[in-house]
């Protein structure tokens, strides 16, 4: 009897130990994310389009990276760096022992090759490397980059995905075409499978230089173009996370006890683009009048369900050197009418507003603006066009006014300024704006001014000029609308769009 009792006690003890152990929360082996479109080109040196760019933070790394809030630069593969007095020589001290996802060590030659390739391959982001004169690696842990001239935003350039380290011998072995489908890098994940147009399966990089990360074994990005289907899949548990959630569904999803919906802070802004080769958009007074006659808060309330902010400057609110002194003009129909009369349009005018298909926010903006603008006598016709056709017309300057987005790809104002102020670059975002000389000068200076305080002045002034001239009308800043199961923890996406999934997990009971 006594022996049996003690055996029983031991048995109970063992059981309780087990139950404590199994009470620990486990995490899922694979997390499924649904998005609107698949990637099609993952070569960091040549690619474009957010569907491709946002994948890079999973697979490749550079010397530095943007912080999670998108406002500053943090070390990545470079632990520290020194900049010479004249601002021309940057010396980086690299983290030792870093390997590619195939297990081979990263060498100085890989760094040199990767950076020069980014500079010498023509692509939309080549501008980040244009200032580089030469790159050398005296040893595998040191990298020296010489610039052609002092460059204020060079650290921000280095955070870009095209200046990440990749494996030279691998590229030479498989060639350019195959490389766009299967690049390798040092990031937390690597591409395991890619069915084009369907899904990309990322698997944990077994050689990642931070041993405890990433936490989840596999992440699968699935393309589900239909909004309804994507959200239904999330509800049914077929997807763990869904991106590109329509704003009118955010509330409904959030009220579902198993799901959470949120707007991630972004650098994403919507603008009205004016074609300055068409009257009356060449008149600053007319554009100013339209600004007064547009109730942007109503747009935020009705279209974004309050999950956004009215835009005053053309720069996003949390960005570097944001000009907070600019005041929102508000909604003043009388003032708008007065300005139109001054400009020579006392009875308003008629205009065509192009809405590209595939984006319900564009349509809603057009509908609301049509009603708002009619109050000041502007008779707007909404012209709905298929997206490819609409885009063609936009680039050919064959439009009056349309609505479109812009988002930064780098944590520095110079990218957008380059695109909006310099006529050679696609005619100032295809508006054909007659940019004041002063603005062009400032844009060129801003890239080179090494004194931070002076640099800030430059960008404050550029924003003031833009605010006064209204070449395009910034409408609102909107967040990335994402919905996910409540079991997901650690979802991070920086305002520039890149996903930070090292800590992403899905808890399962």
């Amino acid at each position: 009897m006594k022996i049996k009792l003690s055996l029983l006690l031991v048995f109970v003890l063992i059981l309780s130990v087990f139950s404590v152990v199994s009470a620990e929360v486990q995490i899922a082996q694979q997390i499924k994310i649904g998005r609107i479109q698949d990637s099609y080109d993952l070569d960091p040196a040549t690619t474009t389009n957010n569907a491709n760019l946002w994948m890079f933070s999973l697979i490749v790394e550079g010397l530095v990276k943007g912080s999670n809030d998108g406002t500053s630069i943090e070390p990545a593969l470079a632990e520290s760096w020194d900049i010479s007095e004249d601002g021309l020589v940057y010396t980086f001290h690299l983290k030792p022992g870093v390997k590619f996802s195939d297990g081979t060590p990263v060498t100085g030659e890989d760094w040199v090759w990767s950076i020069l390739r980014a500079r010498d391959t023509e692509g939309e982001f080549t501008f980040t490397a244009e200032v580089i004169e030469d790159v050398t690696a005296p040893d595998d842990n040191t990298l020296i980059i010489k610039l052609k001239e002092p460059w204020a935003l060079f650290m921000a350039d280095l955070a870009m995905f095209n200046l990440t380290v990749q494996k030279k011998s691998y590229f030479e072995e498989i060639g350019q075409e195959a490389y766009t489908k299967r690049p390798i890098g040092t990031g937390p994940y690597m591409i395991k499978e890619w069915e084009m147009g369907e899904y990309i399966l990322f698997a944990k990089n077994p050689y990642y230089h931070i041993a405890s990360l990433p936490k989840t074994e596999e992440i699968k990005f699935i393309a589900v173009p239909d909004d309804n289907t994507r959200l239904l899949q999330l509800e049914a548990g077929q997807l763990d996370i869904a991106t590109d959630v329509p704003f009118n569904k955010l509330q409904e999803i959030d009220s579902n006890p198993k799901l959470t919906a949120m707007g991630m802070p972004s650098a994403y802004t919507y603008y009205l683009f004016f074609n300055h080769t068409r009257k009356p958009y060449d008149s600053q007074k007319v554009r100013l009048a339209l600004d007064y006659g547009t109730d942007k808060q109503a747009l935020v309330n009705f279209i974004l369900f309050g999950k956004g902010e009215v835009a005053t400057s053309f720069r996003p609110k949390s960005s570097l050197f944001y000009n907070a002194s600019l005041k929102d003009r508000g909604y003043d129909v009388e003032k708008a009418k007065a300005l139109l009369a001054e400009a020579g349009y006392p009875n308003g005018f008629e205009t065509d507003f192009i809405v590209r298909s595939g984006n319900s926010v564009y349509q809603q903006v057009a509908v609301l603006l049509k009603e708002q603008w009619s109050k000041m006598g502007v008779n707007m016709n909404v012209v709905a066009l298929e997206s490819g056709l609409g885009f063609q017309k936009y680039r050919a300057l064959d439009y009056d006014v349309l609505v479109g987005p812009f988002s930064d790809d780098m944590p520095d104002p110079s990218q957008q300024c380059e695109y909006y102020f310099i006529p050679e670059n696609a005619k100032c975002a295809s508006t054909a704006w007659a940019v004041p000389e002063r603005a062009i000068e400032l844009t060129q200076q801003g890239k080179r001014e090494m004194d931070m305080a002076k640099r800030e002045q430059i960008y404050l002034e550029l924003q003031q000029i833009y605010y006064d001239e209204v070449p395009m009308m910034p409408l609102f800043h909107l967040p990335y609308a994402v919905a996910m199961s409540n079991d997901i923890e650690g979802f991070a996406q920086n305002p520039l769009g890149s996903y930070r999934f090292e800590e992403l997990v899905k808890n399962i009971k």
Partner: protein
Amino acid sequence: MSMLNYLLKRIIQIIPVLIIVSILIFFMIRLIPGDPALIRLGDKATPQMVENLRREMGLDKPIIVQYVIFMKNLLKLDLGDSLHYHVPIVDLLKKRMVVTLFLTAVTFIFSVVISFPLGFLSGIKENKIQDQIVRTAALIALSMPQFWVGLILMILFAVSINLFPVGGWGETWAQHLRAIILPAFTQSLMTAALLTRNLRNSVVDILKMDYVNFARSKGLDNKIVKSRYIIKNAMIFYITLISMRVAYMLGGSIIIETVFSLPGVGSLMISSIYTRDYAVIQGIVLIFALLVMSINILTDLAYTYLDPRVRLE
């Protein structure tokens, strides 16, 4: 004319039709405004970059030259590379053809399984209550838009109760089968409705024929009357309609695959139209034309079995 000769003759006749289709699709899609290179590069592209990409894509050559290159490759059975994905089109299509053909086959089966007994019943019980019910149901099925029906079915049978997955294709063949049920059922409704009406009308007409009464008066078992006389005669129109509907099913796969997120040829077609991927659009249209013509040949062959009066010429 023997079966083999007939077959050969029909197969050779496909060739001029394919050539005409290729000319039509090649030139027509290039008439649509929208530059594939510009769309691929996006709004931050400089004019120089767009020019370079157009050259890479071979779009800077005169259109006739592009057509000749396309036809030359076609003779080597090379559909070329996708302009958007930069992979050989046959690679893109390999898996997707399986999905779409499987969807079409299961849709076909559902259409027949639903329409055959219902159409027959409806015809036999002409104007009685069973006929009224079936005809009303067919009308309702015909009037509902596919994308709406698909969505409702997903909400009912995939989200509320987890009987089927919410779209997607799955990873194993067991999952594929489960995944194809709702889309195939959705797509089959219209065809089933049309086939039901068609069969019902054929049966009604045949029942009035003197040979049916004669067969019954001879004392033949009702089962034999049904199978030998009624069904076989009704089949000719039924099969004609089915073969026409298969062409619709292939085209309709575009909608169904988008709603149910199936990685088939239809969803590839839609995305290729948005990206102006001329090469993929041409390839898919030619393959579909080939499929539809093959089905026509099979249908014609089936006629000879069903109606001995039909000769192969």
